[in-house]
C-alpha cells in the first residue's frame, strides 16, 4: 500500500515540478525583474521559513496526523531563544534552548495524542493556544529585539552568494529526505500513515513513532523561529500566526495526502517554492495582496483536484 503510495508520489513530484517551472516561465515572460540572480536568491530566503516548517509538517501528515501548533511554537521558541540571547547566552546555547522548547512542545503534542488518545487536531489546537499564550506571557506581549551580528549572520551571511537560510533549508530537506526514504524510521512513518492497525500488528512501535514525528515538527518550528528571529533581528510573541496553514498548503501542493502514508519531502519543498515564487512574482507585478490570496487558494485547490483526477477511481 505504502509502496504504491510512494510510487505515485514520485509522479506527483514531476507534476509539481512542471508547475513550478511553468510558473517561473510565465513570470519570466511577464516581468524582467523575476529571473535575476538577486531576486531568485531572495525567493530562496523568503521561502526558507515556510519550507522548514513544512518539512516537519510532512512527517506529521505522512503519519496520518496534523500539527496546528507550529506557528505558535515558532513564536514560543523564538521568544525563548531571544530571551536567552539577551541574558547573555552564547548564540549556540541560545539556539539549542529554542530548539529544546520546540522539541518539548512537540513531545507534549505527541504524548497527548499517543498516551492521552486525543485526536491530533484537538491536541495541537490546544497547544496552539497554550504556546501562543506562554509566548505572550513571557514577553508581556512585547517583541524582544537587538542581537549581536554573530547570531544575525544566520540570516545575513552568504555562502557563495547563497543566503544562509536557504542553505539551512537545503540541509534540512536532504536530511529529512534521507530519513524518510532510507531509514527504518521513515518506512515506519509511511506504514503508520498508510494503515496504523496493520503497522501495529506487524510489530511497529506505533506510539513511539507517532510521538517522534511531533517532536520533529516542533524542532523544525524552532529552527524556523531561529531563521525568523535572525532575519527580523527580533522575536515577536505574535509571530507565526497562520504559519500552520502555509505549511499544510506547501505539503498539500507538493502532493502529500492528508490521509497519511503518501508524500515526499521533495514534493513539499516544491510546494513551498511554488508559494514563495507566486508571492514574489505577484509583488514584482504590483498585484494586490487580496488577489494574491485568491491565487494561492486556487493553486491549493487546483493541485489537490488534479491529484484526485489523475488517480484511478478505486484509489479515491
Amino acid at each position, binding site marked *: 500500500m505504502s509502496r504504491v503510495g510512494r510510487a505515485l508520489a514520485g509522479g506527483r513530484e514531476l*507534476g509539481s515540478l512542471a508547475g513550478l517551472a511553468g510558473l517561473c516561465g510565465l513570470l519570466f515572460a511577464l516581468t524582467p525583474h523575476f529571473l535575476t540572480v538577486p531576486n531568485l536568491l531572495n525567493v530562496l530566503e523568503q521561502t526558507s521559513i515556510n519550507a522548514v516548517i513544512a518539512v516537519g509538517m510532512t512527517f506529521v501528515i505522512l503519519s496520518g496526523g496534523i500539527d496546528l501548533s507550529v506557528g505558535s511554537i515558532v513564536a514560543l521558541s523564538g521568544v525563548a531563544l531571544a530571551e536567552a540571547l539577551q541574558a547573555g547566552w552564547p548564540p549556540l546555547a541560545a539556539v539549542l534552548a529554542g530548539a529544546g522548547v520546540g522539541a518539548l512542545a512537540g513531545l507534549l503534542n505527541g504524548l497527548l495524542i499517543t498516551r492521552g488518545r486525543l485526536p491530533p487536531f484537538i491536541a495541537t489546537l490546544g497547544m496552539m493556544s497554550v504556546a501562543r499564550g506562554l509566548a505572550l506571557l513571557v514577553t508581556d506581549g*512585547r517583541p524582544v529585539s537587538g542581537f549581536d551580528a554573530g547570531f544575525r549572520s544566520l540570516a545575513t551571511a552568504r555562502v557563495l552568494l547563497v543566503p544562509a537560510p536557504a542553505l539551512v533549508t537545503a540541509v534540512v530537506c536532504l536530511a529529512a529526505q534521507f530519513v524518510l526514504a532510507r531509514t527504518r524510521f521513515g518506512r515506519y512513518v509511511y506504514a503508520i500513515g498508510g494503515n496504523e492497525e496493520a503497522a501495529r500488528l506487524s510489530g511497529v512501535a506505533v506510539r513511539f513513532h507517532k510521538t517522534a514525528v511531533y517532536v520533529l515538527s516542533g524542532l523544525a518550528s524552532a529552527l524556523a523561529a531561529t531563521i525568523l528571529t535572525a532575519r527580523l533581528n*527580533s522575536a515577536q510573541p*505574535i509571530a507565526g500566526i497562520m504559519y500552520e496553514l502555509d505549511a499544510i498548503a506547501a505539503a498539500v501542493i507538493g502532493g502529500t495526502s492528508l490521509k497519511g502514508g503518501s508524500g515526499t519531502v521533495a514534493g513539499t519543498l516544491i510546494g513551498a517554492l*511554488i508559494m514563495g515564487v507566486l508571492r514574489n512574482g505577484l509583488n514584482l*507585478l504590483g498585484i494586490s495582496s487580496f488577489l494574491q490570496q485568491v*491565487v494561492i487558494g486556487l493553486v491549493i485547490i*487546483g*493541485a489537490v483536484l488534479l491529484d484526485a483526477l489523475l488517480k484511478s477511481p478505486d484509489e479515491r
Partner: protein
Amino acid sequence: MQRSAFLFAVAAMAAPGCNRDGPAAGPARPRVALVVKTLNSPFFIDMQKGAQEAAGRLQVDLVVQAAEREIDVERQMQIVENLVQTGVKALAIAPSGSREIVPALVKASAAGVPVIVVDTQVDAAAAAEAGLKLATFIGSDNYEGGRLAGRHLVEVTGGKARVGILEGIPGHETGDSRLRGFRDALKDAPGVAVVASQTANWERDQGYSVFQNMLQAHRDLDAVFACNDMMALGAVEAIAAAGRTGQVRVFGFDAVDDARKAIEAGSMVASVAQFPSEMGRVAVESAVRILKGENVPEDQRVRIELVGKGAAR
C-alpha cells in the same frame, strides 16, 4: 504537465491586474513604492488615496502594497525586498513593527533607495544600531492626540472619574504614544483614576469582550479611553449590552466613519481625527523632492484634531 497548464491559467487570469506596471507608464516616470500595514482598513485606504492623487499630479508611477495580515512584519519585509528588485526609486513605508522592519529598510537603503517612514515611527535605537538613515518621518503626533483625548475627558467629567483603558498591541509605538499622552493629561487631575488598563489588540470584537470583563470587575467605571476606534466601538456595544449606554463615556482615536456616527448618536463622546490621506500625499511629495535632490524636513507632522458632537461630519 496538466498542473503546469493549470498554473498558467491561474497566472494568466491574474495578469490583467499588473497593467499599472506595464510599459504604458511612459518614459521618465519615477517608480515610487508605498508599503502600508494592510489595505483592509479605512485608515490605510485613505492614505493610499492621498498618495495616488499626489502621484497622478506629480507624474509618479506609484505601487501600493501590503501584507495579507497587518501584524505580519516578515511578509512586509519580503515585500520590501521584492520591490527593491523592481527598481523603485523611493520607498515610503508604514512599518508593521517598529524594530522588526529595520533589517528590511537597511536592505533598501543599501540598494540606494531612500526610505520615507509614514504613520508609525521606526525605533530610533534599532535604526541607529543598524546604521540606518531615514529620509523623513511623516505622521500624526500620537502623543499629542492622546493628550487631547485625556484633557477632553477631564473636562467632560468635571475632573472626577474612574477610567478604563483599552490598549493596542503592546510594543507598537503608535499605541504606546497615545497611551503616554493620555495618561500624562490625567496627571493634572487628581480626581481621575485609571482603574483598569488592558490590551484588546486593536480589534473590535476583543474591545467588546475585554471591556465587558472590565465592566464586570469595575461596576463603577465612568469612562473608557480606547487607543483606536475599533476597540472603542467594541466597548460601545459592550456598554449597550450591559444596559449602561450614556453612563459610561467612550473616547476613541482615529475618528473613523462608524465612530463619527456613534458620536452623533451620543454613544461615544469624542475621537481624535488623523489625516491619513494627507500622510499619503506628503509621502509622495517628499519622495519627489528627495529624487530631485531637495532637502525635506526630518520630521513632518500631519495635523490632528479632536472630533466631538457637532464637530463630527
